[in-house]
């Protein structure tokens, strides 16, 4: 039996490091490393735990530039069986509809996927829309914002999990095949192993799919398949701050200084 699990991972610029050129209004890419979107690694870890427990396989997939291969290699070196790099210029500029569209087709092409896992949201666009979008396109049930995986019942083919809404926690059951989006920090992603790293380099372990191979009409993907259009971008100037920083190795003096500031602000 086993579970065939597909995991969507996005290769994102590390937002902590992103800087902007205020004159040219462009992103300064030099020196900015990219990383796998953090909750996506939690999704990979969950997939590996489920496979180790119930058998089956884990396929990671990423739509992105050729450099996104590094993210897939990381997931394979953690233990994923296979990676799919969905990469080609026609996919560029995709919004969440176009992204969901492509990932849903990839899952169909993988055949017999039981569980499609995604991160709760990305650090670069932070929408959390892709998982629910894929769920609609595949007609599969969805458990979003999952905070605890409880059980998989192979006989009834249902999974049980907890998920968190703004006002509380829901216990949900879903029939397979299903989509789940995983909260950041629900587990600790395992480190890559040397054996895994070697495997990731083997030919065939990471496949590259382009839009022709996937049978897409170019009008339906990338920028052209995206109903939303970014009309303008502004750089947000952070509100000016005093930036008065003192050394606090003498706590009494620091406290006195803080009290002065609190007085000036009118709060004491």
């Amino acid at each position, binding site marked *: 039996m086993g579970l065939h699990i597909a995991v969507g991972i996005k290769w994102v610029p590390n937002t902590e490091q992103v800087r902007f050129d205020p004159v040219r209004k462009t992103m300064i890419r030099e020196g900015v490393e990219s990383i796998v979107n953090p909750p996506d690694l939690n999704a990979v870890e969950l997939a590996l735990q489920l496979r180790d427990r119930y058998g089956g396989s884990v396929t990671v997939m990423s739509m992105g530039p050729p450099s996104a291969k590094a993210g897939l290699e990381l997931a394979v070196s953690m233990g994923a069986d296979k990676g799919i790099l969905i990469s080609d210029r026609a996919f560029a500029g995709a919004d969440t509809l176009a992204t969901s569209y492509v990932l849903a087709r990839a899952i169909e092409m993988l055949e017999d996927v039981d569980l499609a896992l995604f991160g709760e949201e990305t650090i670069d666009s932070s929408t959390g829309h892709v998982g*629910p979008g894929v769920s609609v396109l595949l007609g599969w049930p969805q458990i979003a914002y999952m905070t605890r995986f409880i059980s998989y019942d192979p006989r009834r083919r249902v999974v049980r999990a907890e998920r968190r809404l703004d006002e509380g926690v829901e216990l949900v*059951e879903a029939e397979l095949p299903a989509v789940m989006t995983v909260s950041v920090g629900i587990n600790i992603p395992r480190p890559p192993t040397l054996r895994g790293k070697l495997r990731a380099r083997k030919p065939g372990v990471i496949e590259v799919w382009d839009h022709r191979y996937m049978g897409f009409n170019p009008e339906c993907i990338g920028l*052209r398949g995206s*109903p939303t259009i970014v009309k303008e971008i502004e750089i947000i100037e952070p509100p000016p701050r005093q930036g008065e*920083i003192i050394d606090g190795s003498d706590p009494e003096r620091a406290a006195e200084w803080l009290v002065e500031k609190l007085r000036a602000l009118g709060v*004491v």
Partner: protein
Amino acid sequence: MVCPEWPEIKLEEWRDVWVYIEQRGGVIKEASLQILGKARELADKLGEELAGVLIGHGVSRIAMEPIYYGADKVYVLDHESYATYNPELYSYLMVELAKMYKPSIFLLAGTRAGREMSSRIAVALRTGVTADCTDFDIDPETGELIQSRPAFGGKLFAHIKTPTRRPQMATARPNIFEVPPRDETRTGEIVRVFIEPIKTKTRVLEFRPERTEGEQPIEKARIIVSGGRGLRGPDNFKMLWELAELLGGTVGASRAAVDAGWMPRSRQVGQTGKTVRPYLYIAVGISGAVQHIAGMKDSKYVIAINKDRNAPIFKVADYGVVGDLFKVVPALIKRLKELKGGGAG
């Protein structure tokens, strides 16, 4: 050219502004009411109607509420089979409703439920959706909705449009817009709709509401003392509560502190928590990751206490102390108590 796999639509057939009125147990979410004020402005600019969409069991009782807050009309889907919130069912109902009445703009609150449904509805209708907007406007030339939202952890502000598809969909970040005044003299139309429910492949077995212990919610506080991983454990938050009380404020937390179970989720500040804009924000043992800063950077004043001089929180601080919080905070509490007790010092 548009994707031939999308259903064809005629833009001019889509009119009116809709707001999904999220409720649980017959209580309307404040985040939904907040959108009504802004949506009223948009509808007025377009010369179109503003409608609320209310789904649940027994919600007829509260059907007039959206009208009191500015709507012209409310679509009420009240049936026992809609009693439990289920994104699969609720988004299906809204997709069918949108196909019937064709709204031009459809807004939802940027709660988790609002976000997951907005994507389901948009994808089913093959239209766009912008998450977490903090401003909306109407392009005076084209009448298109301008959806504005922060991106890249709050470093950019993007203005987004959905020119060729309808409805133009977005979620609005909670606590950005103000709830408009409630006016019981307003009148409007109630449209009752029944849509045959689908059999869902998900079942909600249980819902456990999160306790919000009678304390002041952080969204409304004028002063917030927030703690992070630097606090090392739940017991040390007592110190922050004490400090907050002396200042007349309340306590918030970083996600790291919430994930560790030291503080309830309802007090998390940041991108996946609450956006707060207090008069004073005091960050204690918080490094200042972009996701945290996204939720507090519009505070009027920021004070940071952290032992690491290079912590990014200092970049957004007006006043900072580089030092051990376990020494500085107690010293500060002591000094404040002396001031309170001893009168003029």
